[in-house]
């Protein structure tokens, strides 16, 4: 069983690399800032990353199929606005408003999915369109003004604690476990990897490629909806300007976590680690009083570096594969001379 599963050993290695990078960051920040490695700050980080990580979990599903979902940033603001408005303007209960909010996320995903999967639109264009549309709708609905004064109960979702743990971190944990289970333990999850790896072969094997494809966008919409509720609760208002650029942070987390944009690979654990790296980086740098513009430059560099490492590794592994194939050819595989 030593050389058996090169995919698994690769992903193992992949996550090991991310963990190593994370460890280095933690050590560096622990030495340069007294506050960094304290229980309070670490718990604080889990709260800070929760929104990004929640979006990134849904994004992982989409990216495994080889797609992309750019609309999630706008979902954050639009769902936040509607949830806030439900409570404030229509006196709907917190639970009711939250459910409506998440449903809106799901519907957005469904629309994305139908366009991409059944109408063969490019995912990039479709979700860019819904991104812009939702952003516009948010401004129309609010006239540009935030909706605030949302009540204590609602704020507990993003600001509260369960025992010593921040509530958003608990929500993240639950969503991550469910997502892990879906991807790794179900037929549906297997099919997601299959259509990302080879849609044509999947179709020939009888997989309902289109249905699976729609579902991943719905999942992305739902996790973005959940993230939107957390975000609105954390800042205590529905803001038409919030969330822009969140889609890129989520994609960054997924990619740092080792997923390939071409589809077929990616894990929930990797994505969470990617999200933690981005979170630790911004937390640590702001503790060190690094200018926020400089922080952006550094985050960008980290993303590029992560993908670069990924490229180099995949090239190396394909070289290994070619060598293996050549060895097999030498054993007596015939190439037809047709």
């Amino acid at each position, binding site marked *: *069983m030593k050389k058996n599963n090169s995919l698994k050993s690769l992903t193992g290695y992949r996550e090991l690399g991310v963990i190593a990078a994370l460890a280095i960051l933690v050590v560096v920040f622990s030495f340069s800032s007294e506050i960094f490695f304290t229980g309070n700050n670490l718990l604080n980080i889990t709260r800070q990353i929760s929104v990004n990580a929640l979006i990134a979990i849904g994004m992982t599903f989409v990216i495994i199929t080889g797609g992309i979902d750019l609309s999630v940033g706008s979902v954050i603001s639009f769902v936040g606005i509607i949830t806030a408005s439900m409570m404030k303007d229509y006196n709907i209960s917190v639970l009711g408003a939250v459910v409506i909010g998440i449903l809106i996320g799901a519907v957005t995903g469904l629309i994305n999915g139908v366009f991409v999967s059944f109408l063969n639109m490019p995912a990039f264009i479709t979700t860019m369109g819904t991104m812009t549309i939702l952003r516009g709708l948010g401004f129309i609905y609010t006239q540009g003004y935030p909706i605030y004064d949302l009540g204590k109960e609602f704020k507990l979702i993003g600001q509260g604690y369960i025992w010593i743990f921040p509530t958003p971190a608990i929500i993240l944990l639950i969503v991550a476990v469910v997502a892990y289970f879906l991807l790794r333990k179900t037929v549906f999850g297997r099919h997601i990897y*299959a259509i990302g790896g080879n849609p*044509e*072969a*999947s179709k*020939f*094997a009888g997989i309902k490629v289109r249905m699976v494809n729609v579902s991943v966008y719905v999942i992305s919409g739902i996790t973005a909806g959940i993230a939107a509720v957390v975000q609105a609760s954390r800042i205590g208002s529905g803001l038409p300007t919030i969330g822009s650029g969140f889609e890129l942070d989520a994609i960054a987390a997924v990619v740092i976590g080792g997923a390939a944009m071409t589809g*077929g690979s990616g894990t929930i654990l990797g994505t969470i680690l990617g999200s933690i790296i981005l979170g630790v980086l911004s937390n640590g740098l702001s503790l060190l009083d690094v200018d926020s513009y400089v922080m952006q430059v550094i985050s960008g560099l980290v993303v590029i570096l992560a993908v670069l490492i990924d490229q180099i590794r995949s090239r190396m592994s394909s070289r290994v594969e070619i060598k293996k194939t050549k060895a097999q050819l030498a*054993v007596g595989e015939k190439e037809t001379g047709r």
Partner: protein
Amino acid sequence: MSQFQTDIALEINGICKTFPGVIALDHVSFKVKKGEVHGLVGENGAGKSTLIKILSGVYSAESGELVINGKKAHISSPIDSLHSGIQVMHQEISVMPNMTVAENILIYDLPRKFGFYMDDKIMNARARELLDSVGLYHISPTQKVGSLSLANQQMIHLARIVSTNPSVILLDEPTASLTSNEAKELFAVIQRFKQNGVAVIYISHYLDEVISISDQITVLRDGRHITTVNSKSVSSDDIVTAMIGHQIKKEFRKPEVYGNEVLRLTNVTTATLIRNINLCLRQREVLGLYGLGGAGKTETMRAITGLDSVLQGTVSLFNTDVTHSSIAKKLRQGLAFIPEDRRRQGLVLQMNVQENASLGGERKYAFGGILRKKFEANDIKTYVKKMRIKSPSMQTQVSVLSGGNQQKVIMARCLAHQAKVFLLDEPTVGIDVGARGEIYQLISEIVQEGSSVLLASSDINEIMQTCDRVVVLSHGRVAAVLDRKDCTEEKLLMYAMGMGEENNEKEQFA
């Protein structure tokens, strides 16, 4: 161009090329004169493609030499080949549909102003001349190539070839996508090449065509040069005999006792190649679908699975009409499709043996959508064993397996899905001889156990060895239906090349 006066445009001298396990070309030598059309024929696997690839610089020969216009040519890349004056028109049309006719023709050397600025005027004027030279008087240089017919796109490619003033032109199956009128236009252009002293090597499956257009014909078989003959003094029978040679009698598979009809195609016509296809497959039968490249074998398979929509006629599976059912539904009813391009259409290369073998049929191992991987592993293992797949483990990524084992993984999948009707499209392409035998053995086992097989192949030996009955396709139509006892290689090849007399046997099965 050469300082030597010679009337030989291309001399191929003792060319050898070996692939692991097979000698593709074994000291092949022949000469092509200037202004000559030289036909090159041979069965699949005879070495034609390898020779084309050596001449076009895709492969390099292990030994032997190429002499072009009296000068020894060193061809180790496609660019070398172009510089040596060789131009190849491949079977697949390679034009850029979103660019104009002129840009497509002059792509090798776009006229420039000030070194970088494209000069449209000169470009269009030059393109006009070249268009006229291939007889495309009605096509404007500024048209987009994508708007032209396939035949005209091919002619555009030919004009591009003319623009480089080549000494040798290779045409690989140039009439495959042409109607007979379009083919005539092509032949007229070839005559003009002849007059200009260009040597043309003409490769085609259609013997009549080769005989009528060529001056000399070279026959290859099993990588060896068999003969070069004057086409005026040769009959198609002679050439077919040379192509097949004397072959040792092969072991044939014993037919089983047939059961009921499981698959029937009635007058199936698609938008792709095939017209009015009739065939029926019975339980425990292996039905061959023989034809040369482009005869419509894959298209027939695609029509059965529903990947190409059927415009006319019906497909029935176990006596139910499934003409317009989805592929997933047909698979559930017991159909199995094993495509020719197994890496692109059969397997998810990033996944392991177990995952690939259960692909699409995972529900069998699931409880409420949750996969029971141990159950899956145990069940798949029995099929992996049955198929004698050689793999270090069930968790090995399929991309590292040999072609034969990859093919067996797909066959294991079909067995695991309880398939009853197997559609095999060129099941042994790219597979070594040993693994081939194993696949044939597996086919007979599948049939013994009560399933049926429709096997599409352009390999005569494969058809003769495994099939009980053979449907021969030619130009998208059924040319003949033959029982194995009536099959000879000559007969199959004749029908496939569109030379058989109108056959009545096909009516019997309609």
